[in-house]
């Protein structure tokens, strides 16, 4: 939902450490991943001559550095889309970027009854047939 670091503690890996804590939690809980709205906070500097799509494309390609979004992409997030009217933060001109991290360790199905699989039907013991008594 939100991640912040005090200005004087930025660019020291604190934000990355916070993201790692969330990744570890997601792995532990076996969740699909992490979806977030990213603020492209340097877009305002070039917004007069560039639309947001082009800006984000360039950030993805590595041709442009965004102080916020670029760091998140480096941490493994992927851009899934753009969100208009996302924020009142003036430096983003209202735009948010939908970013998603897919948990590589996610297991879609958990065995609810592991014992049931240990004894498949094909290995069921044949019914006992009594041999006729010899005279």
């Amino acid at each position, binding site marked *: *939902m*939100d*991640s*912040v*670091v*005090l*200005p004087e*503690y930025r660019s*020291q*890996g*604190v*934000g*990355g*450490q*916070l*993201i*790692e*804590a*969330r990744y570890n*939690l997601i792995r532990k*809980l076996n*969740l699909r991943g*992490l*979806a977030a*709205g990213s603020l492209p906070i340097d877009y305002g500097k070039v917004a007069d001559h560039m639309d947001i799509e082009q800006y984000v494309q360039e950030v993805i390609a590595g041709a442009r550095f965004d102080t916020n979004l670029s760091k998140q992409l480096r941490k493994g997030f992927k851009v899934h889309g753009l969100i208009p009217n*996302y*924020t*009142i*933060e003036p430096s983003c001109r209202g735009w*948010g970027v939908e970013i998603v991290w897919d948990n590589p360790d996610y297991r879609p199905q958990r065995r609810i009854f592991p014992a049931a699989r240990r004894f498949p039907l094909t290995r069921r013991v044949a019914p006992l047939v009594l041999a006729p008594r010899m005279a």
Partner: protein
Amino acid sequence: MNVYPSTSLHTRPRQSRDTNIAVVPSSSKYLAEMEQCHQLAYGYTPQTVSYEDLTAEKFRQHLAIFPEGQFVAVDRRTDRVVGLTVSMRANLHKDAAINWAELTNDG
């Protein structure tokens, strides 16, 4: 014979360059500091607070609903909250068009 180089690829890299910063699970004792941290990070004051901004009361609710998902970064030297992250857990459907304010009840 040791086939791995001394700096093994399997060694987990240190997460932060500044080892004085520790990320720990959030708790109610940090609420006031978290509010202050959020204000300083976004550059607003209690007078200019908007619906988007996170307050101690909202942090308290996050802790009550999903305590595992809340973390703070603490400077060990001063025990000061220097960063924070809050998470919510949801079943996301691709087709469900829902905005941030609706999904989070205004944060």
